[in-house]
């Protein structure tokens, strides 16, 4: 009895440990398969074609610059929507809202995070884009702006939850100290609580941007899918094509092993590296902040 128990314990501990390590394995596997299928791009397509401004795979033009600028402009727009709204909402939930209000707001924001992106894209096609076309008098409503607005909505829950955690983590004593010195609640929020939570708020913004740049379905459905170089602010009002949408729209139709196939994997590799960069940067901000807090407390 005693012995079999030990044996079971041993096996289970090993299994649990292996599961823990599996996260590393999966990231490695994902990277490996993206590289394996993406790297042949370099000898199948020529580099000048990759860096050109024309994406027209049927005639072997694989310029990814329009796709990158497309992703950037939509993400920039989304950030302009999501950051103020997300941080404002986080401050409201964490510092101002009465308890009952908080209990309503938090699940609602979470709900937004769970809304399938395809539903938002669907409403974007049917409601938002016709509205923007008429309202702004554009030739088409399927523009970078439409994508930005919806994407902003998708990024909001990420910003809210991370920023709210950061604000919550500010010790209550900070606020009480400020109140005791005669500061109003508002002054306390902006001059004490918010600066103390700064690094967490920065993380929230970065993760929000990461969420926006990786979003696929909504963007594919509402941005018009035109791979045009988007360099001016005016491009916000014309159709664009993002990296994610290109993969999603074209991968289903390419022959596995063709140049086009490898280029799409290459774009996936670029997206993977971007998201990895954003996430490592965001988490290192948090780690540093934690260390600083530990130093202060010790």
């Amino acid at each position: 009895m005693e012995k079999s128990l030990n044996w079971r314990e041993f096996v289970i501990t090993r299994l649990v440990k292996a599961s823990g390590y599996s996260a590393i394995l999966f990231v490695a596997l994902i990277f490996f398969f993206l590289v394996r299928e993406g790297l042949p791009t370099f000898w199948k397509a020529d580099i000048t074609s990759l860096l050109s401004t024309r994406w027209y795979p049927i005639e072997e033009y694989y310029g990814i610059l329009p796709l990158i600028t497309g992703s950037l402009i939509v993400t920039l727009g989304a950030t302009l929507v999501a950051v103020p709204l997300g941080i404002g909402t986080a401050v409201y939930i964490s510092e101002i809202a009465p308890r009952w209000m908080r209990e309503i707001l938090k699940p609602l924001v979470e709900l937004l995070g769970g809304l399938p992106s395809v539903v938002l894209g669907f409403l974007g096609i049917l409601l938002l884009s016709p509205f923007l076309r008429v309202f702004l008098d554009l030739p088409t409503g399927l523009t970078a702006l439409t994508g930005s607005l919806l994407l902003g909505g998708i990024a909001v829950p990420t910003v809210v939850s991370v920023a709210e955690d950061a604000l919550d983590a500010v010790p209550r004593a900070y606020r009480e100290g400020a109140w005791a010195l005669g500061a109003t609640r508002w002054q306390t929020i902006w001059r004490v609580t918010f600066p103390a939570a700064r690094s967490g708020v920065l993380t929230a913004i970065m993760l929000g941007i990461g969420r926006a740049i990786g979003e696929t379905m909504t963007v594919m459905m509402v941005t018009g899918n035109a791979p045009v170089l988007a360099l001016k602010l005016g491009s916000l009002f014309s159709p664009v094509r993002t990296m994610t949408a290109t993969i999603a729209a074209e991968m289903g139709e390419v022959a596995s092993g063709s140049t086009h196939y490898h280029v799409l994997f290459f774009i996936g590799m670029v997206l993977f590296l971007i998201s990895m960069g954003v996430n490592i940067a965001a988490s290192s901000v948090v780690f540093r902040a934690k260390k600083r807090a530990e130093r202060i407390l010790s």
Partner: protein
Amino acid sequence: MKRLLSLNRHLVQQIGYTALTLMAVATVLPIIAVVIYILIQGLPAISTEFLTGFPHDGMRAGGILPAIIGTLYLTVGTAIFSVPLGIAAAIYLAEYASDTPLTRTIRIAIINLAGIPSVVYGLFGLGLFVIFLNFGTSILAASLTLSIMTLPVIISTAEESLRSVPQAFRTVSISLGATRWQTIRRIVLKEALPGILTGVILGLERAAGETAPILFTGAAFFLPRLPHSPFDATMALPYHLFVISTQVPEMPIQIQYGTALVLLVFVLTMNVIATVIRSRARAKRQW
């Protein structure tokens, strides 16, 4: 000006509060509006035939049964792989792992998994499951892809929930002669269960609504019959909504809204269940 402001600091606070309240309203109101709007527009489409029939006339008529069943299969398939693995990984991080460079690497890996764009998961699933392991475009390949995507959500919520169980519970159990695993299984897991369940459901909710990861790993445009085995491709609600709202010309608007409504109800139900479990557990908790 500055003096004026500081004299009127209560006015400033009033203005600030109002602005933030408006922002919160601007965030939340569209969510409520979206849900209500889809409910109103979609409800007339809902009928027994719509829910239990197959699409016909190039999907412009009939029901969406294969898409509903497909999403159920995919959600269950995702749960089979991601729930045990995710909870085990969380147990490792919360109960066994010490703060070593390797543990930190695991954490960074989880953060990275959470940030990888869904379409990149699709590419990965295509490369590994569909082509390399030769599962083909199938429920199995799509479920595995969705599982890995769901994993970070489950791991991080489950770990948080395990960590919130007071240390004293473990100490007492071990001092009574229980082994570490017995303590985890009978005491810690039991106490952390509602939190873990909430995380699992929220993770699966995301998986159920995703389209991009299944685009090239398991989703079928149209199938005249239900899938018979895990190696069959399947229709799925989110992909079906994408197809009928962008790829099919002259699609009746009502069927589109009806499909959106069914998908929304599917996802919302999971969301509400998760929220209820969590708030109930919080109310009952004595520590």
